[in-house]
């Protein structure tokens, strides 16, 4: 996988429930995201090292991720395999690991970066817009999307972070470029009431982005 520096991939809220395993899509990669028992977000390559099964089909058992195919269990943090049910008497093989990404939760979003990258997680200024609204897909990416966002009154305030107004309320969009033709917009506002308004307005935003392209 290509080395990638810190980018937002999911709202923290997407990993609210204890046994959630959520798929993330970023730069053509697929991630499986979940939380360890102590609440630390995990971002793993969505592929079991045994036979390549997507880990998002699996289950969380005792704080470990268990693959849906053969029940292999992987430890939070390292992603290392600690249990193979087909050979329960034997210690788990050395060095069998899911590929993991660095994770940081900043301002209500889960950010990921490749392990090869040495940069610190983004130190974002505190913002009022901590109320998550929704994540929505638009069939546009890169410069073409940015042009549409600018045309609709949004401006990039930090990398991957755009500010503007939606349904009459101030809003922040965190951008995750999932693929070259598809971006996820993660929408935040400041209050619960604003979140409802902005969410209802988000369909029109998406239509405006896609129609104008």
């Amino acid at each position, binding site marked *: 996988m290509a080395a990638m520096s810190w980018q937002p991939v999911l709202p923290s809220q997407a990993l609210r429930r204890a046994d959630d395993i959520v798929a993330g899509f970023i730069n053509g990669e697929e991630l499986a995201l979940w939380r360890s028992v102590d609440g630390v977000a995990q971002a793993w390559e*969505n592929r079991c090292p*045994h*036979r*390549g099964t*997507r880990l998002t*089909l699996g289950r969380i058992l005792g704080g470990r991720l268990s693959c849906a195919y*053969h029940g292999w269990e992987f430890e939070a943090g390292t992603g290392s395999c600690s249990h193979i049910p*087909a*050979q*329960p008497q034997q210690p788990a093989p050395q060095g069998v690991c899911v590929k993991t990404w660095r994770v940081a939760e900043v301002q209500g979003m889960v950010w990921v970066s490749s392990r090869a990258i040495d940069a610190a997680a983004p130190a974002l200024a505190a913002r009022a817009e901590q109320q998550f609204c929704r994540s929505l897909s638009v069939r546009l990416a890169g410069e073409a999307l940015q042009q549409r966002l600018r045309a609709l009154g949004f401006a990039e305030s930090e990398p991957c972070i755009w500010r503007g107004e939606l349904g009459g309320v101030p809003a922040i969009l965190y951008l995750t470029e999932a693929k070259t033709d598809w971006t996820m917009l993660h929408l935040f506002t400041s209050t619960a009431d604003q979140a409802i308004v902005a969410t209802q307005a988000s369909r029109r935003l998406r239509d405006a982005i896609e129609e104008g392209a």
Partner: protein
Amino acid sequence: MSGFNTIDPNMLDDWLTVGPATRVDHGAYETKLLGSRVRLWRDDAGQLQARAADGRALQVQQRYGYLWICASEGAQPKPLFDFPEFDEPGRRIVDCDGIGVNVSGLRMVENFLDMAHFPYVHSHYLGEVPHTEVAPYQVSIDEEADEIWATECRFYQPRTSGSATEGVEAHYRYRVMQPMTAMLYKTSVPRPGAQDAIGLFVQPVDEEHIIAYCLLAYFEDTLSDTELIAFQHTIFGQDKPILENQRPKKMPLVAGYETPTRCDAMSGAYRRWLKKRGISYGAIS
């Protein structure tokens, strides 16, 4: 130039199934094989005919109630595998027909040979936690037939077949006849000591799409065909989301992708056998 989307002789110079013989009962039948359309029919003399997309005649035969094509012109394919149970008196032959699956045929066959997934994918049927351990079994190659066998396999199964009413330790044998065909033999519930045979015949529509046909040769006289087919479809239907969520869809035969273990003895033998044959279709080689 074969006209098909491959130069792999494992696919071109051998027999591949395109479905049950009933497909040509009421006129011509068209389907896709190795990425290209083929057409089959019975002529006025009742002879099977098959043509490639470019009109070339293809060798075709009917065996075991199924249609088999050799995609390569002028090839002398070795005879199709033996399946003596098909003609054995007392057995019921039930054709479960095919389920389309979006994966390489090689992964489909490997799944068919695997027991370790029973408690996870076929829970309450072919396996159950905590009976997850795969006891060691024997793997051998029949050099003359160029087939692989796994014998002395056994696994605890809560519901080994449609007629099972209690858990049993099922005894299995597995056999790979071609890259895209395999057989399993398992404890017969009504006739302990004998084994039912289940054939898997895979039609490679293309490298990442198949139709998985299943043919049963059972000792069984209480369940209807519908019930036997429903059970088999349940099992295949449970495997389908796993198979369709394996990445990559083609089977990696190069190092660095996937990790076998000792209890994957049969799948390890299958992958080594494929590599030795130089397979490229449906593989990353």
